[in-house]
C-alpha cells in the first residue's frame, strides 16, 4: 500500500475504534487505542504518530460530546462550563478534547518504543 494513504486510514480506523470503545470501556481507553493504532499502521515518524493520536482523541471526544448534546438538547454542559469560567459547553469540550488529545498523542508517540 502507498505509505501516503496510511495516515488517513490510521485516523479513520482509530476514530471508529475509539468512538466505539469509549462507549463501553473506561475513559482512558483512547490512550491504549492510540498506542495500538500507531503500531498496527506502523506510523513511521514521531510527528505523524503524535498527530494521529491527537486527532483521533480530539475528534472522538468532541464527536461523542456533540452526539450527547444533540440527543438531549440539554444545557448542562454550558452550566458546567460556567463553573470553570468558560463561556459554553462547546468551548469546554474544545479545551477538554485538546487536553485529552495531547495525552492521546503522547501515547501514540510512545508506541515508537516497540518499533524497529
Amino acid at each position, binding site marked *: 500500500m502507498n505509505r501516503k494513504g496510511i495516515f488517513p486510514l490510521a485516523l479513520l480506523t482509530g476514530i471508529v475504534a475509539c468512538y466505539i470503545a469509549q462507549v463501553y470501556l473506561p*475513559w*482512558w481507553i483512547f*490512550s491504549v487505542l492510540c498506542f495500538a493504532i500507531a503500531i498496527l499502521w506502523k506510523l513511521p515518524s514521531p510527528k505523524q504518530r503524535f498527530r494521529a493520536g491527537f486527532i483521533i482523541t480530539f475528534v472522538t471526544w468532541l464527536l461523542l460530546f456533540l452526539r*450527547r448534546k444533540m440527543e438531549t438538547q*440539554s444545557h448542562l454542559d454550558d452550566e458546567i462550563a460556567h463553573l470553570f469560567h468558560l463561556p459554553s459547553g462547546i468551548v469546554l469540550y474544545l479545551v477538554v478534547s485538546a487536553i*485529552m488529545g495531547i495525552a492521546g498523542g503522547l*501515547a501514540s508517540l510512545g508506541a*515508537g518504543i516497540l*518499533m524497529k
Partner: protein
Amino acid sequence: MENADRHRGTRRRLTSGAALLVSLALMLLFNHKLGQVPPPGKFFDPVHGFMANAESSRDLASYACALPGPVQGNIYMDDRLVPHIYAKDAYSLFYLQGYVTAKYRLWQMETETRAAAGRLSEVLGPSLLSYDRLQRRLGMDSAAENALSALEKDSLMFAFVSAYTSGVNAYIQSLSYEAYPLEYKLLDYRPEPWSPLKCMYLLKYMARDLAGFDDDVPYTHVLAMIGRRDFDLLFPDRPEGIDPIIPTGTSWNFSPIQVDTASDCFPAVPMRPDSSMASQQHNEKGSNNWAVAPSRTADGYAILCNDPHLQLNLPSIWYEVQLDAPGIHVYGASLPGAPAVVVGFNDSIAWGETNAGRDVQDWFQMTFEDASRQTYRYGDSVLHVVKKPECFHVRGAKEFWDTVYYTLHGPMVYRDFASAMQDRADMSMQWQALYPSDEFRAIYMLNVAKNYDDYRQAITYFECPGQNFVFASHCGDIAITQQGKFPVEWKEQGKFVLNGNDPLCNWQAFIPFAENPTIKDPERGFVSSANQYPADSTYPYYYYGFDFEFFRNHRINAVLSQENNITIQDMENLQQDNFNSLASDILPLMMQAVAADPRIHGDPAVTAILDTLHAWNYFDDPDITAPTYFQIWWDTLYTTLWDEFRKPGVSLIRPDFYNTMRAMHDLPQDFAYYDILATPGKETLNDVIDTAFSCMMRIVETIRSHDPGRITWYAFKDTRIMHLLQIPVFSVSEVHNGGYRNIINASSQTHGPSWRMVVEMSSPVKAYGIYPGGQSGNPGSRYYADFIPDWAAGKYYALHFFATEAAAKDASQFVIQVNE
C-alpha cells in the same frame, strides 16, 4: 554508519519511552481530583462523565424499566414526574417509595443526613469541620441513636423504615459511576449505603431546623443590661393585641400539673465574646395553615390549606408522591429520606403543619466543684461530667478528635470550642430533640387516618419539633392542635439561662398531650395558625416561644372571618396574599413624622417617593417600588432605633417587629432607647424616623444610579432558590414574585412557601399544590426546577390522586415495575 543508526534508534526509544511515561502519568493524574477540579478524565468523559446526567427532554418512555426485587409493585410516573406507587402490601410500598425517592433525590438525602450527623467534612473537606463539630456537640448523633432505639421498639414502624432503607439501597447498588447523581461526580465521592439511622438523622435535621433555636443567652444579657422594668416593656411575655391559635375566650377544662418554682434561678452570665453576634429574629421560617368548615364554603365541603415556609433550596425539600397499598391510599409531600407523606390527604382526611415555635431548648449555667470542671453539685449530690469522644475523618486532612462533655441536662455544646459562643463555655443544653420519640408512627397514622379520633390519636406520637397540626375531614370536621412534648415550666423558666446546679430549674414534668392547646369545629367556622401564640393568658400552663409571629395570623383571620361561600380559588388567592400588615400599621406614623420635617420639603425626589408611598395599598406586589422604599426605610429605622441592643462581640437581641411597632405607637417620643448613640444630641422617635428616611433616600439613589431595575420590589427582594452547594448555575435567582416575611406569601430572599397545598374534602377529593423546585434532583433534568415559574406566578397544579391503578396507568408517562 551503523553507530549513527544505533544512536538514532536509542534516541527514538528514549523519546518514545518518555512520551509513554508522560502519557501514563497524565492518565493517572486525570483519574484523580485536582484541587477543586473533579477528576478530569472521569468527569469530562462524554459518555460516562457529567454528560451522562444530561437528560433528554423527549422520549420519557425510554425511562421505563422492569426490575427484580424482593417486593412487588408498579410506580406510575405522571407528566410532572410524580410517582404513583401501587404495591401489594405496605412493606412493598415503602420499599418502592425508598427506591423511587433515591432514584431522583439520592444526593440530597445523603447530604442532609450527613449534615445532621456532622459528617460533611468527610466529603467536603476541612472547611466543614467546625460545622460538623457543632452538630456532634449539639448531640445530633445521640439524638438520632435515641430515636432509632425508640423505633426499634415499634416493630411495625421499624419494618416500614427498614423497607424504605432496602429500597434506597437497592437503587444505590444498581449504580455505576455513569449513573451517579451529578454532585457525587463533581465532588468525587461515591454514595454510601442507606440505613434506618439515616432516616432518624433526617428527622433530627428537621428538629434542628424547626426547634433548634432559643434566645436564652441574649435575653439574659439584655435583662442584665436594661433592667426588669424596661425589659418587660420591650419584651413582654404576652403583648396586647395578639390573636392566638385557640381563639381568645376559649375555656380550659383541666387542672394543670403544678411544679415547684426555683428561687435564685437565673444566674449571672458573663458577657464574653460571642462570634455569632445577636441571634436576631428567626422569623424567616414559619408557615401558614388553616381549615374552613363546610358551613363557610361554597361547595359545602371542608377546605384545608397549608404552606410551610422553609429555606428555599434545590433540590427542593419536598418530593410529591401518591402511595397506594391495602389499607393506605394517600397523596402529598414527602421528605426525601423518610417514608410516608408528611403533609397531605387521603379520601377521608387532610392534614398540614406549621411550626409551634415553642422553646424546648434550655441552657444551664454550671458551677463546678473545682477548676478541672469534672464534677458539679446537683441538689445534694455530686455528679461527674461524662466525656464522649467524637472522631472526624476529614477528607484531605488528618483525622480529628473532639470531646463533648455531658452533664445530666445534656451536652456542654461550647465547652473548649474556641470558635464561638464563649459566654456559653460553662453551659449545658437541654433539648427535647435529644430524647427518644417515634414521630414516624405519627406520620404513618396520619397517612391512614379516617376521622378526627384517628387524627388525635396519631399526633400523640409527635413529640419534637412541636407542630400545629391542622385537620379537615370528609365528614366536615375541622380542628387544630399544637402538638409536641412540652415541659411544664414555672413563669419564665427557660426564657433565661438557668441555674444548672438547682434541680428545680430542671424540667420536672411534661404537659399531658390531652392538655395541649386544641380546638375542634369552632363557632367561627375556621381554624388557623401562622406560628403565633397558641393560646391567650388563660391557658393554664406557662409557655414561651422564641419566635412567635404577629402579622400573618391577623391577616388570615381577618380575611377568613369576612368571607363566606369560600372557594378553592379564594384559598389560593389567600395563600398568595401580599398584604403587608406591618406597613399598613406603621407607615402612616412614619409618614406623619416625615411630613413634619421642614428640611425635606421641596426636593422633587423626596416628593416622588412620598407620593408613591401615599398611593400604596400596602400590597408587596412584585412590579412596584413602594415596598422597596418602605422596606429600606423600616430596616434602617429598626436598626437605628435599637442601636443600644447591638454591641460588638456580645450576644444581644432587639425587640421584635410587633413590640417595636407597639412601642412606636405607645411610648413617649423621648423614650430613652430611641436615642442614637453615635450622635452627641438626644434624638426622639421622629428624629430617628427622619434620619432613617434620609438614609433610605441615599440608598435608593445609589441603587438607581447603578441599576435602576433593582428598585422594583421583586428584583430588590431577590428571592433565590439556591442549590444545596450554593452553586449559582444550579440555582435560580431574582424569582419574579411578591410577598415578604411577615406577609402571608412569605417569600423573602432565602425562605418562602416551600409547598402550597389546598384540599377540598369532597368526594373525590379536589386538591391543588405546587412547590418551588421540581421532582428530579438532577440539575441536568428538565424536571429539576420546572415548577418555579408557575410557583412564582401563583399557579397551582391539580394533584392527580388516582382512585384506581388503572387510572394511574392510563395517565402515566412511563412505568417502573418491580417483580418478585
